[in-house]
């Protein structure tokens, strides 16, 4: 759906209604939410969950407001439940606007070694990003190397994917980068290899790591590359 979801925060109708957020007319807003929900249902949009939640929060607040307050009981305005995050959002919004107006590096201001491409004759870096298929190919070839005959023993304690992620994180903190072959030392069992592979995928998904492939030296003989290969 080509909808600008990011512009559509749960509090959107409240902002749109231009009401005093310290005195939110709950029933009006609730009606508006329900209208939104109805529209979403028609459009068959599945992110209506947030709106259902908001609508029910509003209904809940309304019902609490209708209940008489017990004597001696100090209850804060139930509407604060939505006023507070809304205020916080408005604060953040102006903070974001102020951030955008700063001298942004690479936009307004530049340093001697800008994080940019020089327009003329610059090739991309010596590493290229690789896709899932290359990764699976590499994994397959490592699995092929694993000595056959090792059966997965379900009763044994195995390194979990989470554990492997933290091991890899420590390894990468110490080493900055590591090659695929280094991670799959000879003699590992199939299950360990799979755990490592899953850990790599998970970390890539969380953007904790970047997977890159060095362009083979034979293909692109840039001086830079030979130096890289030598180290």
């Amino acid at each position, binding site marked *: 759906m080509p*909808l600008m*979801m*990011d*512009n*559509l*925060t*749960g*509090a*959107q*109708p409240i902002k*749109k*209604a*231009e*009401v*005093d957020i310290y005195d939110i*007319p709950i029933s009006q*807003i609730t*009606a*508006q939410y329900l*209208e*939104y929900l109805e*529209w979403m249902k028609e459009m068959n949009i599945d*992110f209506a969950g*947030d709106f259902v939640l*908001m609508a029910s929060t509003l209904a809940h607040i309304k019902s609490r407001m209708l209940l008489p307050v017990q004597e001696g009981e100090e209850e804060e305005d139930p509407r604060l439940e939505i006023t507070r*995050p809304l*205020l*916080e*959002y*408005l*604060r*953040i*919004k*102006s*903070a*974001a606007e*102020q*951030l*955008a107006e*700063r*001298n*942004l*590096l*690479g*936009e*307004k*201001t*530049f*340093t*001697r*070694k*800008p*994080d*940019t*491409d*020089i*327009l003329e004759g610059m090739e991309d870096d010596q590493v290229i990003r690789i896709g899932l298929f290359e990764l699976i190919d590499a994994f397959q070839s490592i699995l092929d190397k694993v000595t056959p005959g090792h059966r997965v023993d379900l009763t044994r304690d195995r390194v979990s994917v989470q554990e492997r992620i933290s091991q890899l994180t420590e390894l990468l903190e110490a080493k900055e980068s590591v090659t695929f072959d280094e991670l799959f030392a000879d003699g590992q069992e199939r299950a360990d290899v799979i755990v490592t592979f899953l850990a790599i995928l998970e970390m890539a998904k*969380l*953007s*904790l790591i970047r997977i890159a492939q060095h362009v083979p030296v034979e293909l692109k003989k840039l001086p830079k590359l030979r130096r890289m290969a030598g180290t």
Partner: protein
Amino acid sequence: MPENLKHIIESLLFVSETPLTMDHLKGILEGEETAAIRTAINVLMAEYEQRDGGFVLKQVAGGYQFRTQGRYNEWIKRLIRPRAPRLSKAALETLAIIAYNQPIIRSDIEHIRGVDSGGVIRMLMERKLIRVLGRKEIPGRPLIYATTKHFLEVFELKDLKDLPTPKEIEELSQSQLEEPPDAEDQKPISESPIKPLSA
């Protein structure tokens, strides 16, 4: 202090590719007093400021760095092409939430923004503006996020304290809220909330 201390520092700042910190400078300029170095830097900063040329000396991300003046950015963009596209409004908001509330977990970010923020967070991670500090020891062990040093560099901030204080922001948003109510308020609420979405 050697008379040319100022010029030594200037040469170091010229060559350095990243902001040079006071500690780093002190390490290079063995035996120099912090005060002498700071004075020299302040003189340099004032000189460049006064010259008002193509670049100035700025205090950023805990160090000092030469940076071009904002007014020449269009010219520089003819020479180089910024690698990263501009940050969207959603990205800036998410970044602001993290900057002001760090360390923070995703669900707290989403509570303020009111929408799923996974994609934006991933993008901010890729741009190295935020990083994972660890995991919070609550059910689900969610990741904890914080801003990076690169964030300070990009937004030309000395340090995190250089961000406008919550009070300053409060005042700003207060003034927004206190705009005099006008006829808009009386608008019937049912005036098609759908319109802006159907584009």
